[in-house]
């Protein structure tokens, strides 16, 4: 029996509409993502570990480490906190800003699309979202992991110039961007949103 050795990427989907949530969940699961759906921006932030206006990792509960999110996909038009507001909060958080964000909207309004992309959204999907749109998600996840790995390596190099870096996962990956998301986080680094979910 074939065993998947890679943990599926985890997507957090945010939409206030119940049928739309069901649809996006199905689209994502069909595309081999692990999915969590929430019905509001504030619940999304709660799930991501942001409480109120805190953006310190210290506010994250221990069990939030299990819920590492690799991508957030959110509806634009939602009561209370819009998808744009949610995007802003994510990008303002040093802890969450590297998670790719995709915005969905039923309206094709260029100024809206531009505004979202300028604020840091990685992609904009017109609703109804289709299965073919799902293939656009993984590249953003991988890109953000590459960037993160690069930043981590830069940090390592500047931190420990004289000491030997004996972490085996770094040896081969200094010039290549590893596709694997089983990379270990170093002890002195907190990379909550990249932590591999614990599996037995």
């Amino acid at each position: 029996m074939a065993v998947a050795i890679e943990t599926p990427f985890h997507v957090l989907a945010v939409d206030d509409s119940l049928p739309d949530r069901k649809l996006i969940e199905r689209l994502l699961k069909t595309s081999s993502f692990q999915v969590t759906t929430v019905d509001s921006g504030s619940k999304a932030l709660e799930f991501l570990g942001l409480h109120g206006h805190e953006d310190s990792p210290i506010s994250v509960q221990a069990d939030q480490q299990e819920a590492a999110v690799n991508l957030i996909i959110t509806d634009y038009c939602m009561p209370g906190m819009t998808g744009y507001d949610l995007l802003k909060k994510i990008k303002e958080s040093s802890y969450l800003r590297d998670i790719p964000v995709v915005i969905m909207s039923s309206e094709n309004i260029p100024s809206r699309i531009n505004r979202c992309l300028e604020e840091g959204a990685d992609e904009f999907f017109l609703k109804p979202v289709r299965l073919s749109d799902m293939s656009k998600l993984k590249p953003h996840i991988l890109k953000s992991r590459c960037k993160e790995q690069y930043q981590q390596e830069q940090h390592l190099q500047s931190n420990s110039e004289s000491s030997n870096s004996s972490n085996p996962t770094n040896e081969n990956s200094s010039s290549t961007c590893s596709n694997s998301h089983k990379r270990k986080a170093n002890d002195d680094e907190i990379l909550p949103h990249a932590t591999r979910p614990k599996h037995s």
Partner: protein
Amino acid sequence: MEYSNLRRQTIFMKKNLFDQGYLDEQFNQLEELQDESSPNFVEEVAALFFKDSSRLLTNIEQAIDKYPQDFYRLDSLMHQLKGSGSSIGALRMKNECSVFKANCNDRNLEGCRRSLQKMKREHATLKQKLESYFQLLRQVGPSEYAVSSRK
């Protein structure tokens, strides 16, 4: 064979729904997402849609009778209905939403009322037709449905 006759009926029923403009391509997209791991997906989404849309229609009806009229709120409610309607491929409903929204824009209360009545009729008709369709599909059986939906 009784079975293939049933199957032909489902194909015919679905074709009618498309030809008469009740459904659009998005409904096919939903059927493509249905498989052994989610064998009742389309019916489930449709059920959620009708639950959601019934609630919205009730809210719109209440809002339309309030004075002074809040066209912004009416438009916003109908916008939600339009969104979820387009997610399941409810073409006629989606189009009527646009008519309603145009009336909101013109602050045409009478137009809004007429449009709402039309919307309720479309809603009821689509619900009934889809219920018949799903019922027939259940008689045909899941595996054959999965095959026929790929046409």
